[in-house]
């Protein structure tokens, strides 16, 4: 008989992460006293294979029909445990998680209070799960076309990977040409390969690929639909373009920081203070010249411009240190008797071949001077005629403790990178979230680094965080292979936590119709009731909280479930006897 509720509760230690702050054993013992709880256990790592085995065996042995795991955030392991339930023959929605790591153990300092709160959260989950219902999976077919937004190295790599396997790609680029940031640079670190040789063949291949349609000078304002079945509309040269696709790769890249705002650097005021991007331009042309058109004899390179400083951007832009070393090498080979001064805060040489590149560069008579990035930036000023150089830089050298005046004819500012200006618009159009710096957030920073919380939408390259070429390409190909796998499978499972109308209760007031952001609810004139289109419904539940008669239920977030959770959180957890 389904009505008999047999609940298994599992309290995870997460090693010492939870166990240090929460008395997991006590929580399990106390929870075991609650009605309908058949068994309550605690275990070191519930998400591990033995942890999942424990649940699966108990489901079979004790005939459990509901499982509560009290561990980390459901955003991390809800799917893991739902799968375990399925393996044991239970419906995956007969599961609930209580978050006692992120919301308890990691944020509180009093073990007694933390244990009490953990107990309340578990009691709430137990009370909620009594009203859980089995939900049937829904699968939708996948449109095999993919939309790639952005035509830089990441977008091009992803597009080629997918198109080469015979699937259609629409590549939309906001500027008038493909290539992105890589097209702006001369050589690449640490192997000094030509960027042109990397990017040009890719641009050519993409442009001529039978499976790729390129749209230049176009932006995506809105994407409609859901995983497997998206569509968008935009105009190109006054002509309306309509595209249908099953997956989206966002590869919108990044832009460089504008250093005009840094007072002491004199960018825009002192001639021959240039940005790294402007210096790349000179290298591409093959002539390093000051504003006066002379060959510089003293060149200073300043790191971390706009990066790693709370006044500008707190994060590290990742590539500038190695680009600075690349510049030092290129200057030394173009003007062998030039003096190169490299003013750095910390030398970050983390990638493959990069530390070796640093060692090699430091043997080339490049003068490295360290400064304090937080408190004491170097000061750049125009020199007097008698100084014999155009610019003077005063730097409090950190290692020697001395104040050094560096003469320069040219200063290269290693500008950091930041999110694109239209990052927010794109985020809204495709439904991805942004972190505080306007870079896009991946589904999981370690375990799911290219997917997002919107199924079917992936983020790759510089739009996700500052990145070098190899990392951007790796992400692009990772997203492409994820998409190809779903296309190959042909269909994808979608959330079934949609709204449903109880026609007997519906009074036909149509309030739900007016609040639905997806126009997923229609009024059936014949039956005089509202009807939910489950394909369009995304399960936000707004209709459920609007319905005056309670006719609309938000599956898996029903009134009964949430009200029971509240009751468990407050009264039931207080009634629990301490053991």
């Amino acid at each position, binding site marked *: 008989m389904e009505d008999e509720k047999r609940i298994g509760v599992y309290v995870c230690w997460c090693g010492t992460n939870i166990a240090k702050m929460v008395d997991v054993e006590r929580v399990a013992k106390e929870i075991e006293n609650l009605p309908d709880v058949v068994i309550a256990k605690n275990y070191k790592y519930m998400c591990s294979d033995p942890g999942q085995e424990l649940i699966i065996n108990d489901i079979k042995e004790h005939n459990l029909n509901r499982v509560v795991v009290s561990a980390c955030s459901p955003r991390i392991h809800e799917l893991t445990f739902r799968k375990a339930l399925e393996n044991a023959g239970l419906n995956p929605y007969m599961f609930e998680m209580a978050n006692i790591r992120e919301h308890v153990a*990691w*944020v*509180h300092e009093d073990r007694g209070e933390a244990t009490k709160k953990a107990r309340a959260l578990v009691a709430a989950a137990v009370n909620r799960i009594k009203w859980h219902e089995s939900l049937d999976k829904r699968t939708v077919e996948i449109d095999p076309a993919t939309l790639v937004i952005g035509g830089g190295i990441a977008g091009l790599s992803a597009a080629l990977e997918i198109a080469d396997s015979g699937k259609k790609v629409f590549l939309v680029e906001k500027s008038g040409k493909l290539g992105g940031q890589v097209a702006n640079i001369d050589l690449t670190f640490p192997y000094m390969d030509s960027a042109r040789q990397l990017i040009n063949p890719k641009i050519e291949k993409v442009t001529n690929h039978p499976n790729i349609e390129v749209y230049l000078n176009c932006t995506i304002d809105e994407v409609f639909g859901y995983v497997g079945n998206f569509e968008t509309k935009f105009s190109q040269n006054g002509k309306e373009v309509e595209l249908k696709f099953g997956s989206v790769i966002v590869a919108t890249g990044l832009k460089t920081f504008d250093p005009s705002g840094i007072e002491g650097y004199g960018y825009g005021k002192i001639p021959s203070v240039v940005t790294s991007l402007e210096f790349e331009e000179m290298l591409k042309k093959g002539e390093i010249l000051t504003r006066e058109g002379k060959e510089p004899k003293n060149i200073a390179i300043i790191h971390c411009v706009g990066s790693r400083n709370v006044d500008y951007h707190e994060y590290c832009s990742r590539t500038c240190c190695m680009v600075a070393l690349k510049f030092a090498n290129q200057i030394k080979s173009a003007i062998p008797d030039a003096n190169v001064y490299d003013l750095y805060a910390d030398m970050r040489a983390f990638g493959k071949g990069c530390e070796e590149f640093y060692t090699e560069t430091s043997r080339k008579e490049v003068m490295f001077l360290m400064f304090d990035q937080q408190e004491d930036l170097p000061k750049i000023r125009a020199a007097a005629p008698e100084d014999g150089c155009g610019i003077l830089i005063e730097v409090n050298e950190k290692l020697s403790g001395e104040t050094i005046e560096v003469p320069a004819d040219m200063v290269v500012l290693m500008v950091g990178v930041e999110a694109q200006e239209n990052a927010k618009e794109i985020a809204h159009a495709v439904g991805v979230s942004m972190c505080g710096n306007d870079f896009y957030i991946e589904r999981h920073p370690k375990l799911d680094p290219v997917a997002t919380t919107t199924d079917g939408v992936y983020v790759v390259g510089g739009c996700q965080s500052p990145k070098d070429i190899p990392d951007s390409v790796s992400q692009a190909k990772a997203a492409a292979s994820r998409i190809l796998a779903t296309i190959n499978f042909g269909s994808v499972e979608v959330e079934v936590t949609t709204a449903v109308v109880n026609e007997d209760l519906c009074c036909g007031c149509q309030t739900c119709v007016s609040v639905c952001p997806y126009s997923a609810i229609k009024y059936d004139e014949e039956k005089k009731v509202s009807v939910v289109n489950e394909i369009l419904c995304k399960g936000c*539940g707004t209709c459920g*909280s609007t319905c005056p008669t309670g006719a609309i239920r938000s599956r898996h977030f029903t009134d009964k479930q949430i009200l029971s*959770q509240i009751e468990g959180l407050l009264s039931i957890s*207080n009634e629990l006897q301490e053991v």
Partner: protein
Amino acid sequence: MSYQPTIVSFLCNWCSYTGADLAGTSRMKYAPNIRIIRVMCSGRVDPTFVLSAFKEGADGVLICGCHPGDCHYHEGNYKCLRRYHLLQKYLDQMGLEKGRLRLEWISASEGKQFAQLADEFTEQIKQLGPCKVKETVENLT
């Protein structure tokens, strides 16, 4: 020990719940009085949930959603905002202090703001003292 209020907090899955998770992963410390319930959208927060929380003994209710314009479901947070104002009036008419219910916007990157808000709201409720709704209801029945 000083009076420790119990606060129920409804957080939307996409912004605020993730923000609270971030407070955790960043090991930011805040008052243990806040107990979180996850909803998919702040627009799902039915006024009944809030009233029921007070009835079951909550001293305060905190609702958090995505910042205006950032709702994962486009406009659920606006619907929540409208209901919040109505609910405030209703609570007032019932004789309950308006300060016991609060709506704030917390994005997925605002772990620090969530931790601060939790402390601040706990302090706010401590000032108001225990909520009498549960007791009153029990005396009536």
